[in-house]
């Protein structure tokens, strides 16, 4: 059991991210139907499609909650020595069960209600949505606080409502618009959604500021703690979404001029808004597993320390010898130690080894971005095979990322997988290898199906988003914050690159925005590489 402990911890955070996203989607779906779709007179076909979407989301929520109960119960049974009956009691388990029940109610209502939702169906949907919201809020920081519990719980609930009514409802707007032929109906639906979105943005930001006031408590809480860095990440994503939202608001106002073309642009921007919104929810899930900054008054980063770390230095392109690294702890000892103790401090050679890895990886990413940029010019079409450089990166990660494990170190391949960081590195290497082969085939014209083009933007954006929750197991709090800052910057450039490429592929050809997006993503990729090149552990 202890063997699997770390991976179960990993799974618990993953499931939390999934349930938060599905909560936003389901509550957003209900709000879309009750506030926008039904009163806005959306087509029956569109409403039916929205209900189908809710059915799938509800089913996924039930499965995710069952998995959460299973994982959390196994964790406390295996590590706290409680009985099965004890494990299946308590507030968090009750919240998961309530959430699964509400999702089941929504599934049944969405499945068996008629096209025009009757009054009692609407009331039942609203009640189930409130139940889902309450369950999610009861698993937030607010309920476990010793002070200001009521105020913080209220702010958290409003923050969730704002996120659901904006980000969670938007996929249903896309579903509805895709199935609406009448431009007048589409405009009415967009108008109602815009008004709901404006109120929800105000709620989201207002409640977010309130939470930040209590949880950050000071400027150093923002820049000196992991909690604060993740808040900054959410703020950056919010700004991007607001820019796209403003563009959509403008498009919606101009829709009479050339309805079909402008509606297409609106849908494309909305797709990216949704994706960035769910990236922000992922950052929120990472945030809930961190202690609020106000609880960590000591060991915070100072501005001069951040400036010193950000100062550019020559990348380390010469590796220390493998023999100079700290000897690997036997796997059984490492597993036992990992349960209660923070990791031991790395020595200079270990840190130099890690920096060398990051810097070479940075060079490869800068090269890939530069080649992708060059390939836009007719004389340099050969550069379109830029994904090949990533194949080398994958082999590099596999060989060097975890030197205490197979193939370089003494720990066996399977035994090494007890550590989530190793699992992540190996999965990343495989993904990058698969992506390199895939994108090369697309560039060479061997894969022609439209969906194959989307593999790169999706993998780039999703991989970068997941980087937001990647923590190196470093010995001190300050090092962890600095590492998270690097990861967050890389992640945000990666997310920007992925969705800019998505827009380039999806927007109508040869329009200003489409060409602009085509230059944004290679540059963002190069910037991510530069951050890697400036990564330091000492």
């Amino acid at each position, binding site marked *: 059991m202890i063997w699997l402990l770390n991976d179960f*911890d*990993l799974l*618990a*955070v*993953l499931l939390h*991210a999934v349930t938060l996203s599905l909560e936003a989607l389901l509550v957003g779906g209900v709000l879309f139907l009750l506030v926008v779709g039904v009163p806005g007179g959306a087509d029956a076909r569109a409403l039916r499609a929205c209900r189908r979407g809710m059915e799938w989301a509800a089913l996924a929520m039930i499965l995710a909650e069952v998995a959460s109960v299973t994982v*959390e119960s196994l*964790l*406390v049974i295996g*590590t*706290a*020595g*409680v009985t099965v009956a*004890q494990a299946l*009691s*308590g*507030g*968090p388990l009750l*919240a998961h069960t309530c959430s699964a029940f509400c999702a089941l109610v929504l599934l049944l209502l969405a499945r068996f209600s008629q096209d025009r939702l009757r009054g009692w169906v609407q009331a039942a949907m609203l009640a189930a949505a409130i139940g889902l919201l309450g369950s999610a809020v*009861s*698993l*937030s*920081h607010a*309920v*476990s*606080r*010793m002070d200001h519990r009521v105020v913080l719980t209220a702010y958290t609930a409003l923050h969730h409502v704002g996120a659901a009514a904006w980000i969670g409802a938007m996929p249903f707007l896309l579903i509805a618009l895709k199935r609406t032929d009448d431009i007048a109906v589409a405009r009415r639906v967009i108008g109602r959604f815009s008004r709901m979105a404006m109120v929800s943005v105000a709620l989201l930001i207002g409640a977010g500021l309130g939470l930040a006031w209590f949880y950050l408590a000071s400027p150093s809480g923002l820049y000196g703690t*992991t909690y604060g860095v993740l808040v900054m990440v959410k703020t950056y994503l919010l700004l991007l979404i607001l820019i796209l939202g403003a563009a959509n608001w403008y498009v919606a106002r101009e829709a009479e001029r050339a309805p079909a073309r402008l509606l297409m642009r609106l849908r494309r921007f909305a797709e990216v808004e949704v994706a960035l919104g769910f990236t922000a929810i992922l950052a929120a899930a*990472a945030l*809930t*597993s*961190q*202690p609020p900054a106000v*609880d*960590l008054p000591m060991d915070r980063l100072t501005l001069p320390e951040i400036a010193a770390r950000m100062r550019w230095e020559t990348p380390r392109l010469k590796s220390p010898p493998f023999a100079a690294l700290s000897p690997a702890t036997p796997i059984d000892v490492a597993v036992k130690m990992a*349960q*209660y*103790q923070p990791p031991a401090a790395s020595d200079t050679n270990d840190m130099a080894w890690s920096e060398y890895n990051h810097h070479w990886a940075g060079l490869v990413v800068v090269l890939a971005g530069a080649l992708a940029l060059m390939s836009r010019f007719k004389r340099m079409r050969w550069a379109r095979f830029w994904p090949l450089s990533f194949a080398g990166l994958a082999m590099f990660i596999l060989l060097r990322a975890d030197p205490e494990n197979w193939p370089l170190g003494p720990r066996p391949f399977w035994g090494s997988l007890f550590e*989530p*960081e190793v*699992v*992540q590195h190996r*999965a*990343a290497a*495989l*993904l990058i290898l*698969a992506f390199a082969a895939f994108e090369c085939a697309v560039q060479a014209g061997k894969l022609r*199906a439209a*969906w194959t083009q989307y*593999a790169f933007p*999706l*993998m780039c954006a*999703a*991989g970068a988003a*997941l*980087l937001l*929750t*990647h*923590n190196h197991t470093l010995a001190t709090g300050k090092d*962890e914050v600095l590492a998270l800052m690097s990861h967050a910057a890389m992640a945000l450039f990666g997310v920007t690159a992925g969705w800019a490429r998505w827009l380039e592929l999806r927007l109508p050809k040869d329009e200003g925005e489409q060409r602009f997006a085509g230059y944004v993503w290679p540059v963002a990729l190069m910037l991510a590489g530069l951050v890697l090149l400036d990564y330091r552990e000492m």
Partner: protein
Amino acid sequence: MRDNASFRQRVSVVALAVALLLLLPHAAFAHAVLVKSSPAQGATVKAGDVDITLTYNSRIDALHSSLHLVGADGKAQTLAVDAHAGPNQLVAKATALPAGAYKLEWQVQASDGHISRGEVAFRVG
């Protein structure tokens, strides 16, 4: 043929999703933070019965939490946790401790479900 393409597409999407889920890394699991302990980290206490109080920054669920006392010989004993302690405290008693080095290994579940772990080393002398 179309069915095969559709199947391949679905398999690719599922494979991508699984790979990405595998990639979803761990956050630092330090949600409930130990803010005070008695005995304190590195402290020396008198031999005999030792009252233990660990205080956290947030409410915890004592029923789903655990406390182990590990002696210098590496042997661990599970301590019974007081179910009626403060909402943010883990309280227990270790009886008849002889002189030596000890560590408390704790695991707590915060009221919001997150689990944290850590240890406190002290001496009995």
